[in-house]
């Protein structure tokens, strides 16, 4: 097969325009006691900074409850940041009013985790795809239909006419996910946020969808944020990885560097816990850090990973929050081991 190799080459990102800039973003949710009085905060995102370039694909890797969904929803403009801001194409999005927000939503597409839950069961595929265009002010029906046909072709749902009349329950899991992707693409966004787009799909379909997303990302020069807990799929998809733990990005860097040489003990643990299909796995035990991720209401003092970390330094890791170090070019880690 004349398929291009899927493993991403590291591109020089420097020359590309910054599309999305996030500086010291915090998203805290108030905890109320019996409806009045603030009892504390859930620090879902606590000091996150990164830049995303035009046409760049990055992966945010973390376990459930680490704040990756809150980060994503803030980027989508669904949550307001408590502190810091999200800057898209030079515009601060928290200041946007109705008109600005409507423009912003046309620039950002969202691919949900559970395709069946994301598609309204009472709407045909045509209505599902038409609605964003109507809201976006595309008055001409012919124009809308031709756009729908083009996008359906891009997500390889052939023949288009047959699919348009169908309802979500008539589609297989893979086709539903294609429909969700088509909806995300329909207003020609510059940025796509995909929240675990393949985790609900079967192994054989999973690769097909990942390849489709890769193809779309490359042909349209899209910026892509791929949120996942599965390290084995990230290298087929993104150029950079950001590892998130308890509301913080503990390690950031190009994919090749992180997968060859993970620095943060949490990243090391995640990689060790990821299995490849190999019969020798059954012979031994895995090294897994004990315990569970901390509560985001009262995160531990110092480094948030220190209670589970085998390499924690007494008197340092349990007291002071580690700053960001850069032991290699372009590879940052928040860990005292690299001071």
């Amino acid at each position, binding site marked *: 097969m004349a398929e291009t190799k899927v493993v991403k080459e590291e591109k020089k990102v420097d020359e590309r325009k910054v599309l999305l800039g996030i500086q010291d973003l915090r998203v805290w949710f108030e905890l109320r006691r019996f409806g009045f009085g603030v009892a504390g905060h859930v620090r879902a995102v606590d000091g996150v900074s990164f830049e995303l370039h035009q046409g760049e694909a990055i992966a945010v890797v973390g376990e459930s409850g680490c704040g990756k969904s809150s980060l994503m929803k803030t980027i989508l403009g669904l949550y307001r940041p408590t502190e810091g801001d999200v800057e898209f194409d030079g515009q601060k999005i928290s200041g946007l009013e109705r008109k600005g927000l409507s423009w912003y939503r046309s620039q950002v597409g969202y691919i949900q985790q559970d395709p069946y839950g994301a598609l309204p069961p009472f709407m045909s595929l045509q209505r599902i795809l038409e609605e964003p265009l109507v809201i976006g002010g595309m008055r001409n029906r012919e124009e809308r239909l031709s756009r729908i046909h083009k996008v359906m072709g891009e997500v390889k749902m052939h023949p288009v006419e047959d699919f348009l009349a169908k309802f979500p329950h008539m589609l297989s899991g893979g086709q539903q996910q294609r429909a969700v992707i088509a909806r995300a693409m329909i207003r020609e966004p510059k940025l796509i946020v995909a929240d675990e787009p393949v985790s609900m799909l079967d192994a*054989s379909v999973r*690769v097909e969808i990942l390849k489709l997303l890769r193809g779309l990302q490359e042909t349209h020069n899209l910026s892509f944020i791929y949120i996942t807990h599965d390290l084995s799929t990230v290298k*087929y998809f993104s150029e950079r990885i950001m590892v998130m733990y308890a509301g913080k990005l503990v390690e950031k860097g190009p994919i090749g560097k992180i997968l060859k040489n993970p620095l943060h003990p949490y990243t090391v*643990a995640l990689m060790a816990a990821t299995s490849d299909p190999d*019969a020798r796995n*059954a012979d031994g*035990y895995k090294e897994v850090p004990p315990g569970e991720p901390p509560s985001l209401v009262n995160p531990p003092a110092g480094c948030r990973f220190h209670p589970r970390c085998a390499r924690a330094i007494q008197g340092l890791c349990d007291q002071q929050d580690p700053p960001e170090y850069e032991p290699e070019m372009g590879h940052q880690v928040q860990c005292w081991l690299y001071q």
Partner: protein
Amino acid sequence: MAAEKLLNIEKLVLHFSTTHGPVQAVDGVDFSLDFHKAVVILGESGCGKTSLAKAILRLLPRNVAQYSGKVWLNGTDVMALNDEEYRQNVRWVGMSMVPQAAMNALNPVIRVGDQVAEPAMIHLGMKKEEALNLAKQMFQHVGVSEDFLVRYPFELSGGMRQRVAIAMALVTSPNLIVLDEPTSALDLLTQANIFNVLKRIKKELGTSFILITHDIATSSELADEVAIMYAGQIVEEGPAKKFFPAPLHPYAHMLMASVPRLRADQDPEFITGQPPSLINLPTNCRFAPRCPKRFAKCDQEPPVVEKDGRKVKCWLYA
């Protein structure tokens, strides 16, 4: 009849009746499992793997159209037992099950310790204190502190609840535990932890497992034997050490090739087409429409061939 095996299944059939016709969820499955071993049943959603588990444990819904075949557990022909005998002598005592989404399988208004103790009281006739003591030991086996005995399920994290569900399956010390997707809803590190627990139980208590999953990569953590299921039938079965490096059946081969790997730069490939509907299945090889290696003979039902210590249902090896 094959007394040295723990479990022996022959021509097990489970069909459901629906308004569209009978769904052939389990259609003539044969396999056997030794003592102290784990078999992994791998397949995509809708291939009938959960129905197979239910057929083995006789946990049947009301719309069963056909349920037949032979199941020997520990030398006893359990299919010959009536429902009451089966409940008393086989379920829990002989084999138990950790259901899919075990985290939601716990009763929310009963303390987890009592829930774990209950099967021991009912099936082993223990007094409550005795059973709670046993539950405490089971909690140690699965790595949950005994302080949690008096907690309610909502106070436990997903991983903890999963461990409690495993403890419950262990409490009657059955020879065989059926695990249906035990880690699919859990995080990576929790998942690795649960597999460590299962490996330890297998080594220390000598329990056998049937692990039903679609996750090929993590299934290799526990597998001694692998069985690949496609459209209600097992298409390949053999030792894990032989299967993982070189699967024989074209479907198994393509399924392995579709797994993204962390430690290899191999390009994953997907399988085109979709599995057949389990209603009105054709009489030819069920994978033939998607198979790149099909040839004239594939119009007929393939035989099960023994090759290299494995069984494979494919004309290529006949």
